[in-house]
């Protein structure tokens, strides 16, 4: 696959879809690595006591997963993500398959940036986490 360049980017170009299975152990590994070891992110029963359907994925981990979708699209092109905004709409439950995708919404010639919508989708097709990112392509 050839690397993305500013000139080659077109509005409507897609990121992903990337499908992956997010395990509870991976969520626990994230919680441990980032100092977020709290029951709602590590234990089903404790999460249910808080009124949740089971242990949930930290919002920051969803952000990291979306960030990686953008990084994978950037590849080794030398472009750089300069902004990522996320909205956590619904809990992301582990031990499910998630789909990550996005598309280019805007290009700005003046500052050589591309903007994109990105999201994390459940097996039911719900957009659990939505976001926008801006990528800068240096000359």
């Amino acid at each position: 696959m050839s690397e993305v360049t500013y000139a080659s980017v077109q509005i409507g170009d897609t990121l992903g879809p990337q499908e992956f299975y997010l395990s509870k152990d991976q969520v626990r590994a994230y919680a441990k690595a980032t100092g977020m070891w709290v029951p709602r992110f590590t234990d089903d029963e404790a999460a249910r006591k808080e009124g949740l359907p089971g242990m949930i994925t930290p919002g920051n981990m969803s952000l990291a997963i979306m960030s990686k979708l953008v990084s994978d699209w950037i590849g080794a092109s030398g472009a750089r993500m300069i902004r990522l905004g996320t909205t956590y709409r619904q809990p992301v439950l582990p031990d499910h398959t998630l789909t990550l995708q996005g598309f280019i919404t805007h290009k700005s010639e003046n500052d050589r940036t591309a903007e994109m919508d990105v999201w994390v989708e459940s097996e039911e097709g719900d957009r659990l986490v939505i976001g926008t990112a801006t990528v800068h392509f240096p000359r």
Partner: protein
Amino acid sequence: MAVDYDPAIIGRVFETTDPVPVSAEAIATFCTAIGETNPIHVDAAAAQKGPWGGITAPPSFAVTFRNGQHFFQHVPRFGKQGFDAGKDVEFGAPIRPGDAITLTSHVKEVYEKTGRTGSMVFVVVRSTLTNQHGEMVAHVDHKFMSRT
């Protein structure tokens, strides 16, 4: 319900943390946890030939820095339950092993919104991350939502 808070809090820095050291190991553990395999983040030899001349943390590492103990004392609360509604992050200098990151935080804005499920208040707290060279590493806007 009117949103009642002291407007003087907007923009006033309420906390500056001690510098938090970033180890190569912390970056490596983070990469493993999110499944990051890009050589510029995980392979020292490959990263040396990359744009930054060495390993850098993935951008999302910036949101792993925690605010200090004063955080919840200075952030106004509304309603009963608060939720983390999302984050907006602006990325500056990359984070590298050996960095020491300081967080400086202030309340950026407070606003009310009425949606399908009723009235909500959003409190946006901006934490600015600065490295030991005084470079801006990231502005992290935390969006807290409460139902009123």
